[in-house]
């Protein structure tokens, strides 16, 4: 039976070429001269009003980068990047640190509104409402709902345009600000921690980032503080031919807790754009960091034209005893993904977790996974990864579990499953398991299968359309991961999953 018109429309609405964040914001911007040289690095550093030590750090990274080669081991295939044909800095023109909404270009505000960044935060940005006051919007929603549980840092191309809830966070002692500001205001903290998890010489893309990073978020949660709200950064690439190189540094001091979310989108363009971010997390004794990502960069069109190259280095260091770092990611965007959020389990009894859903469609290529490096005694890690490949995409899980020979009592459990939708795509699993201690217990399991016909039949027999049935089965398949997301994101992620997949059922 042919699909009913409603279904056809629904599917069309959400296919790869229906990327809904693909609009462009027309604003004037100020850029660094095209290309990369020491001058570019100096330009960025000067723009950011950085102290001399920061410039020296960047230049050191740049010189190292010149000696490095682009890695080729990942299962991704993309045209060679001309690093001299990019802009490394772009900021909305006449940009000043905004004191109120009046300082922010209305175009940018409209952009975030279109992206669905909670209106209430914008209201706060605009100064319409004081913190703690009920929102006027709440009245429409029924009144009971307390707004503003998420503090947002919005990064537009190379600069952070706004950070909300700064005052309230300050009361709790939490520092949440653009990293460029942190370098000026908290140089001791930045100096002490920056580059200690991902050193400047770590890898090709991380080194490039160290040289030219322009902004990102800085979070410091002091000893014993449970951060009173979710922190969130929303990244937006807007400008053409611009690379985005953001740097995030999160430090959770002894006994503290913080949950951090990030979201990413970009306009639809025929050219590929580069995104090479570095995220460093540091958890001291008994601290906990929960880091969630919903990555929805522009994936390119149905023929694989355009899209973001997402080459990201994310690493957490469980430096203290009994610390815990948890990564949750929902990956639906980007033309190419090269991303391995990792945990270095240095403190005894520390824990690392990685929950991931990677969905690829169209011509997307994903090579993603994690590394769990067990150095401390009695450290534990858990990896749950779900890969879903549809269309003509290639989806690879690549993960490392390594147990140092001094790390006794280590436990690891890994489960990575792949699901294929259609016969044009590929799903691959490349786990590396390195054990150097006899007391370690490392378990890995993985399966690959297609959506079970019986399950589909069962659902369809009860009146669901094929698309609905697939969405239901897939949602069940990824449930373990979705449960780890904060509420606000879980809903969005669920929607994303049906968006990415439904278009491909055939």
């Amino acid at each position, binding site marked *: 039976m042919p699909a009913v018109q409603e279904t056809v429309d629904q599917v069309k609405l959400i296919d790869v070429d229906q990327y809904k964040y693909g609009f462009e914001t027309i604003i004037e911007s100020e850029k660094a001269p095209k290309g990369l040289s020491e001058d570019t690095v100096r330009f960025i550093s000067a723009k950011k009003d950085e102290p001399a030590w920061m410039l020296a750090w960047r230049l050191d990274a740049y010189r190292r980068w*010149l000696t490095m080669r682009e890695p080729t081991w990942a299962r991704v295939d993309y045209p060679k990047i001309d690093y001299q044909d990019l802009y490394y800095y772009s900021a909305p023109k006449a940009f000043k640190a905004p004191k109120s909404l009046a300082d922010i270009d209305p175009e940018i505000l409209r952009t975030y509104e279109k992206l669905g960044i909670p209106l209430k935060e914008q209201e706060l940005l605009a100064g319409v409402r004081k913190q703690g006051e009920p929102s006027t919007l709440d009245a429409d929603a029924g009144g009971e709902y307390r707004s503003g549980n998420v503090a947002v840092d919005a990064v537009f191309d190379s600069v952070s345009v706004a950070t909300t809830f700064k005052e309230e966070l300050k009361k709790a002692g939490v520092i949440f600000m653009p990293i460029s500001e942190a370098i000026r205001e908290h140089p001791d903290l930045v100096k002490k921690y920056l580059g200690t998890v991902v050193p400047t010489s770590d890898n090709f893309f991380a080194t490039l980032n160290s040289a030219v990073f322009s902004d990102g978020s800085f979070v410091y949660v002091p000893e014993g503080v449970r951060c009173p709200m979710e922190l969130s950064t929303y990244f937006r690439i807007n400008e053409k031919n611009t690379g985005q190189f953001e740097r995030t540094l999160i430090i959770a001091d002894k006994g503290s807790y913080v949950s951090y979310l990030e979201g990413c989108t970009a306009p639809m363009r025929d050219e590929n754009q580069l995104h090479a971010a570095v995220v460093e997390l540091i958890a001291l004794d008994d601290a906990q960091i929960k880091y969630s990502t919903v990555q929805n960069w522009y994936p390119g069109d149905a023929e694989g034209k355009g899209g973001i190259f997402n080459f990201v280095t994310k690493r957490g260091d469980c430096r203290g005893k009994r610390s815990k770092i948890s990564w949750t990611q929902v990956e639906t965007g980007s033309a190419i993904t090269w991303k391995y959020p990792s945990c270095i389990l240095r403190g005894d009894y520390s824990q690392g977790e990685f929950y991931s859903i990677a969905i690829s469609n169209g011509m997307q290529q994903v090579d993603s996974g994690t590394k769990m490096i067990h150095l401390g005694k009695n450290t534990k890690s858990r990896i749950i990864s779900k890969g879903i490949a549809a269309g003509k995409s290639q989806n690879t899980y690549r993960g490392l579990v390594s147990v140092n020979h001094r790390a*006794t009592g280590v436990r690891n459990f890994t489960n990575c499953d792949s699901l*294929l939708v259609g016969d044009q795509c590929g799903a691959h699993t490349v786990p590396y398991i390195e*054990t150097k201690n*006899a007391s370690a217990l490392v378990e*890995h399991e*993985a399966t690959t*299968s*297609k959506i079970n016909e019986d399950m589909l039949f069962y659902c369809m027999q009860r009146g669901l359309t094929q698309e609905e049935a697939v969405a239901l089965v897939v949602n069940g398949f990824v449930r373990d991961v979705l449960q780890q997301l904060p509420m606000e994101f879980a809903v969005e992620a669920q929607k994303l999953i049906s968006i990415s997949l439904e278009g491909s059922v055939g």
Partner: protein
Amino acid sequence: MATAELAVVRTPAEEAIVERYPAFRARQQHWGGAAVERLREQGFAALKTRGLPNRRVEEWKYTDLKALMPQLAERFDGFSQGLVERAAALRPHLAVGDATRILFVNGCSAATLREQGFVYGSVAHGDDPRPQTAAVISRERDYADNAAVALNSAFMDDWVFLRIPAGTKPDKPLHLEFREIGDKPFATYPRVLIVVEDGASATVIETHDGSDGVAYQTNSLIEFEIGNGARVEHVAMNAAGDKALALSTVAARLGRDARFATLTVTVGAAVSRQQLFLAFQGEGSEAQVRGATMLRDKQHCDSTLVINHAAPHCLSRETFKTVLDDEARGVFQGKIIVAPGAQKTDGKMAAHTLLLSDAAEANAKPELEIFADDVVCGHGATAGALDDNLKFYLMARGIPEKDAEALLIESFVAEGVDSVEDETLREALMDVARGWLKARE
């Protein structure tokens, strides 16, 4: 940009390959014709341009051949009656019962025999292979550029072929017996092609024994061409000398409805790299791939598999058991590839490692590469110490600790060996395992 090409610095072994090849090739040109010549040149070209693989080459990540083989031993030259007698006197690790023996002393087949049930010959000795066999000799090999295979191709000085005619079954198993004897380092490159024609079946036993205390290098390649409806059981025993560097490759191509079972038991060599390249060419075939490895001291063993499901409706099972003591290092790299269109593939791979010492190291990389949607593929990998609860259970029943451990290890290894159909052979293999355990006490 300042990413200049790095100058190629060759190791002494790589230098030796480049230097010795031209003269060797000139000496060997009288046999094999264009097909062998092409393989030889292809192998050499791969070595010359890429050198020996180091750990940055993904397939050799855990076995850095460039570092492990700094020198290329001279190939063995100097047969004598005394040597053959010494070889004959060597007590093999595996007690193989009644079988048709083909003895390779230092890489050369010392026997010429035409047993009933199969056709045996040497390409170098001008035994004219049938056109079908010749076609197999000259076929494309997707593993030809693999460093171990390339080295064998470049430096082979004979190529033994065996053919099991269609529909037949030799009454005795075939025993390929490799013995490496010498007092100073030497290299050998034996190569065997086994064509099992449609509907035929065969049991092939491959054993490697050699002189202890000599850093010899052996690099064997055994290729199976398995016809439609044919069955092959292959059992390999690696008991190479304690200083040996043993590279061995088995390649198998399966036709339609064929069955292939292979088991490799490893206790020997200082460094081993055991490769299997298996390709399903026809529908409805099945393969069982097993390994049992027991290492101690500073032994290193790398089992690398590439299982290519190129045809639909095939099944493969890979089960590898590794026991590591002292400072031994075990590597398992398995890759199941499901080609586009290979629907209804059923592949399951499992690698289990038992660590008996904190200085031992286990590396596993069970990989899936899947391009078809209607398949069931899975892999599992575990690494850990002996289960204390199980040990306690046995000890509570009055079994001394060492014995309890031995029992548990034996049963762990036995799961890999159990599949062998021939009871005598299975027991002989378990005897080797028990011998290894006894030496632990």
